[in-house]
């Protein structure tokens, strides 16, 4: 009886270590798998780009149909030669398509966030607010359509796009 008690207490001590190691392994494996896609983004409110260590941005999906909004209940079908995204189509959830992308429950396809090191924060914030630059976020998309933002880089914005970037006060788009 006493030996059983001791064994159970030891098991209770080992269980969290095994569980956390498993959670780590699953996250690691998920992080490695998937296709990388590059998506243009913009900061959505100059005062709220950085929330703690997170860089917050709004996706600029190359949506073909201009009226379509990837809101709740919708998902995206990606088209292009990874990582170059040529166009996306907004379709209802549960639609079958070769390269799906869907938001995690409680999350949105309109905006995203990226964890960044503190000393790069100020520089990234400036670049994201610069109208001459365009932010490109790399999304790693898994087969089931779930995705993880991996990193951000900047390139000069093509001249014809500048007016749209200069639009003042882009609405912070969040969905519950």
């Amino acid at each position, binding site marked *: 009886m006493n030996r059983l008690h001791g064994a159970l207490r030891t098991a*209770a*001590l*080992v269980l969290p270590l095994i569980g956390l190691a498993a959670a780590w392994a699953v996250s690691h494996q998920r992080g490695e798998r998937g296709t990388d896609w590059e998506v243009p983004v913009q900061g959505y409110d100059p005062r709220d780009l950085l929330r703690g*260590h997170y860089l917050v941005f709004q996706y600029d999906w190359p949506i073909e149909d201009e009226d379509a909004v990837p809101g*709740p209940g919708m998902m995206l079908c990606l088209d292009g030669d990874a990582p170059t995204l040529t166009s996306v189509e907004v379709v209802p959830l549960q639609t079958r398509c070769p390269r799906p992308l869907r938001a995690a*429950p409680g999350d949105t396809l309109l905006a995203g966030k*990226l964890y960044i090191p503190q000393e790069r924060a100020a520089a990234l914030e400036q670049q994201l607010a610069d109208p001459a630059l365009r932010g490109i976020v790399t999304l790693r998309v898994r087969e089931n359509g779930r995705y993880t933002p991996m990193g951000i880089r900047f390139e000069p914005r093509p001249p014809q796009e500048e007016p749209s970037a200069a639009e003042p006060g882009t609405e912070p788009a969040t969905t*519950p």
Partner: protein
Amino acid sequence: MSLRRLKAWEAAGLVDATTAARIREWESSHASPVAMRAVIGIAALAIGLGLVSVIAANWDAVPGVVRLGMHFALMVALALWLWRQAPTGGIAAEAGLFVLGMLGLTFFGHIGQVYQTDSPLWQPLALWLALFAPLILSRGSGRLNALLLMVVMIVAAWGFMYWTIGLRPRLGRIDETVRIVLAITAPVLLAALAAWAQSRSSRQGFWRRLAEFTLLYAAGGASIAAIASADGPWRTDEESTRLLWSVLIASGVTLITALLVRSFRRDPEGRIVGNLWLGLAAMPLLAYALSGNKVVAALLFMALWAGIAFAALRAGWRGAFQSAVGIIAFRLVLLSFELGGDLLTSGAGLIASGLLILGVAWVALKISKRFAPPSGPPPASSPSQEVSP
């Protein structure tokens, strides 16, 4: 030790020469190099602090996998150390267990940073509970870990509720309501476990604290039900079906807890606690039945805390008794303003309300001083800290 004093004692004739010689001999053979140890200790501290600051300064530059590996190695080392501790544990084991639990909690956040994953807060908390609750329940020895377990459980349950409400399309369903209320009332069941273990475990302090925290949580929930019953009536509310389900489940889970506590604890104090749980189980039903009247809601609230004060009086919980009296007095003052809304608009009304507050405070102070059970060691169980009314 300083041998100078020995010389003085020898000169004063307090110690004879042979004894002094023997003391000197013993001291020289048992001398411990205090200065040497202090130097080694300071050096070790400096190296440790230096390592910590070097790691902290370059934390962002360390590859994610290495960072997670260090975090994990720390947990393994702490678990090994805990494993070698005595079963009942001491303050050090309690603190070590708490630190291990916190390292486990932050590990989820760390994974999220390294792999850029993002999940609703309640999910890692629920996983943490599944992994760490057996550990804390089998090794916790004091209030620190009882509090940690309780807080994580409550935050996970309430986080789950807000997350579910956020998924609007699914909210119309009754099974969602059932799941939410079950999650929110689940921490209460720990009281039954605590009642069972209190007479069987050597870690009395832990189970006692856990029982107190669950009782405090349930009393808080019952107070919210009483306060919310001022609106209504809930019967005719457009959400009445959902409200009825919520009330039935909350009462049901609390009733199960009450019956289990009563059957596990046969001692006099246990009977009082069991009856208190029965009263708490009735509160949601009463709130539903009596909802829709401000005065009735206030009376219900005061009846709840009068019941708690009565139980505290009989069980000898001084702090709990005084807190309950203070809460009732506070509610009484609020009620007077709710009933006489114009009290504050005239000079006479202001004087009257001032006198009323003084009167209530004076009576509450008298009651809590005169009737409060003495603060003695047993059964010093106060579910909340002292509040002077």
